[in-house]
């Protein structure tokens, strides 16, 4: 059903079909002046898709909850409304190195739900925290030792005992830090990933990957260490890491040189030696000064099936079959028109932007962001792609998103935008796809856009 819908979505691009992506909601301030702290730095749906968490540069986490569809208007999906907001990380100061540690949330990962409460891991550059988000909708009434105001009653005045009664109250969502995993990373944490055993998780910084147990905060196992004995020889850093969705002994990590290493934790305690090494041979005809920089992988994601993984480098998204190491099975160009602009993009630092990518629930489509608030979706089956824009202009309720096109040639058609007119300050680095439905969350600087398919 999912696949059919998506096929129709892609066909709808060409015109004729009813299925299309449409605007649902936008969260965040409309002001032109964007406060640095409000810039969204990570977006993540939970396992059921009911909760959507965002982290920002100010160290805050905002969780949205999916409201049930209204019975009166069943053709609309429910909306996401704020469920909980809390300050996850505060700015810290490393006294030994005299450095400030940013509170920016680099990643949020949900744990699978095991009881009424929800758990998520959030991390900044140095510290990972396990948060419990729980609801409280009842309160105890009729205490013996304190009265309604909370003041202690005079014990001599207590003449009888009563059992407190649970009374309903307004729903209160509480977020409390349950574990703090600190002091295990010398370098900046770029990834966290919960293992399929639901007991352990890994955290990766530029040079090392550690394996943690969710219950144990004072120790972690170092499983990958690529720090050379002589730092002068450092030429490669770890850029992303992820646990396999089903095999709890397998994980992958990507590097700044465009390589991915798959490691098996059963092979050795220290997984410096990979089990599989994924690298695509370079095309000599497209070699430039920036070849290495644009080959640096900014994100790696396993497919839900666990058979494939997807990597995002500066200009493309590649889908790899885990059984084939020498080249990807699919390559999608995200914004090939930027290849001739690499020099300028290097100059203005855009070439170092780290875009994320994500799979849809059925692994039939992938999505990633670009500049000018554009984001791209690729259907793996039909090989169709679509470029959409997250903008306030197209933010009317249930307004269908119009496909966008960037003109590369001399002639610019109507409704096309030329490469030179792209706004490189408006970049979509973080996107998330609902695990089951066709609902996507796109972070555009300080705004969160939610788009969904139009059900007919």
């Amino acid at each position, binding site marked *: 059903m999912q696949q059919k819908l998506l096929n129709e979505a892609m066909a709808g691009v060409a015109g004729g079909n009813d299925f299309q992506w449409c605007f649902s909601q936008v969260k965040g301030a409309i002001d032109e002046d964007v406060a640095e702290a409000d810039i969204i730095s990570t977006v993540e749906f939970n396992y059921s898709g009911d909760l959507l968490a965002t982290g920002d540069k100010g160290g805050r986490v905002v969780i949205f909850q999916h409201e049930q569809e209204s019975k009166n208007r069943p053709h609309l999906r429910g909306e996401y409304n704020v469920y909980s907001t809390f300050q996850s990380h505060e700015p810290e100061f490393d006294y*030994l*190195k*005299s*450095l*400030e540690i940013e509170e920016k949330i680099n990643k949020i990962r949900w744990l699978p739900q095991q009881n009424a409460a929800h758990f998520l891991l959030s991390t900044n550059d140095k510290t990972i925290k396990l948060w419990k988000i729980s609801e409280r909708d009842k309160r105890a009434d009729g205490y013996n030792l304190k009265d309604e105001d909370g003041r202690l009653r005079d014990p001599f005045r207590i003449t009888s005992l009563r059992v407190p009664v649970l009374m309903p109250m307004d729903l209160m969502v509480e977020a409390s830090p349950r574990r703090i995993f600190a002091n295990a990373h010398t*370098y*900046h944490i770029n990834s966290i990933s919960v293992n399929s055993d639901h007991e352990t998780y890994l955290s990766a910084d*530029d*040079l090392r990957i550690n394996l943690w147990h969710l219950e144990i905060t004072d120790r972690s196992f170092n499983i990958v260490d690529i720090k050379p004995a002589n*730092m*002068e*020889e*450092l*030429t*490669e*850093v770890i*850029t992303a890491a992820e646990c396999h969705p089903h095999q709890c002994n397998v994980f992958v990590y990507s590097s*700044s040189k465009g390589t991915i290493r798959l490691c098996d934790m059963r092979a050795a305690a220290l997984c410096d030696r990979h089990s599989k090494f994924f690298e695509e041979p370079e095309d*000599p005809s497209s*070699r*430039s*000064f*920036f070849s*290495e*920089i644009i080959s*640096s992988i900014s994100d790696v994601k396993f497919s839900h099936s666990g058979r494939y993984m997807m990597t995002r480098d500066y200009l493309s998204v590649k889908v790899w079959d885990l059984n084939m190491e020498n080249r990807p099975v699919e390559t999608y160009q995200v914004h090939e028109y930027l*290849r*001739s*602009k690499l*020099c*300028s*993009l*290097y*100059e*203005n*630092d*855009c070439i*170092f932007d780290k875009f994320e990518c994500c799979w849809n629930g059925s692994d039939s489509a992938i999505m990633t962001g670009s500049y000018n608030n554009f984001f791209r979706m690729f259907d793996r089956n039909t090989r169709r792609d679509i470029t959409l824009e997250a903008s306030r202009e197209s933010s009317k309720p249930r307004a269908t998103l119009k496909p966008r096109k960037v003109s590369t040639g001399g002639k610019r058609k109507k409704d096309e935008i030329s490469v*030179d*007119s*792209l*706004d*490189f300050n408006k970049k979509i680095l973080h996107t998330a796809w609902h695990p089951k439905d066709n609902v996507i969350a796109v972070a555009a600087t300080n705004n969160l856009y939610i788009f969904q398919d139009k059900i007919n």
Partner: protein
Amino acid sequence: MILKGQKRKLDPEDVEVSEPSSPVWESQRQFVFSVSLNKYQRGQELPEPSLRRSVLIANTLRQITLPSADREELQPPSGSLCRLHAKERESIFTESKPNSVLMAGDPMCSLNGSPLTNCYHSGDSGVTTTGDDEDEDWGSMSTDSDFSLSAAISSILTALDSTIDGSPQAAPRTPLRSLENLSGPSERGSAWVKHGTRAGGVSCAPQGEETVQESCADVGKPSYLNDIMMEDLFQDVDSSLLERDMGGLGIRSSRVGYPAEEELICYLPPSSSSSSHPFSLSLNSNLKCLPSFSSFSPLLSSPSPSSPESASFSSQNQARDGFELEHLMEILVES
């Protein structure tokens, strides 16, 4: 770069150049080199530069300055290309050619360790990466782990002293550390000559100008080498200087090396500019020249005015140490 609605001229750099030996390619290469240098230095000025970014920029710089044999991997081999690069290499060693190619060739050779080092140093006297001597020297240093300001000041002073008396080698050159020496090619050149001809001298901090650079300006130091630098810095302690008690600094003395150094540097230039002391002047000029490879351009001009001062500096070495130390302490206490 590109503002919405703003018209851009056709940028020559944006034109995809496929001919590696063409002048456009060469100019693009030089442009990328200067931009990379600039970027790298600015990145290092940040309190905590991004390691990924630094590594990528360093790799790009390394790639730009590869010798022709390796560079041919990048482009289709061509006879003319080989000849061009052979000539380039030749020119590096024949005279001090004030262009980015030379600058690229000279210090960047140390990036790739021994194979390239050997390749580049056939005619060059100054730059090698034989870290062994340096390691031995470091090893023999006092392993004082006292992170006091006094230790930091002493090490800075001894490092400054050793601009004249240091070893002729550029000792454990990290690939990124070596870029610091690009700030003033001719003054470095003259200093290197001095190193080569001088014998003996101050017993500690034999790293010479490199240590001057790294200790005087943390701005030039890659942060991911911090671990090494810390140890090196605090091993480089002249016990004779330590005898002078710096305890009066109180709170400051508990702070660790780098911030102390930076504070010291903050204080030194204003005071030294007002002082007529030759040491202060040369120190000031050294400090001025240190972060200047952000202003590095392919065409480098006349020898730095600091060379005569460094000559005078060289002649008044150890006798001034005690006086300077007290002088510095006065400045710090006053401020």
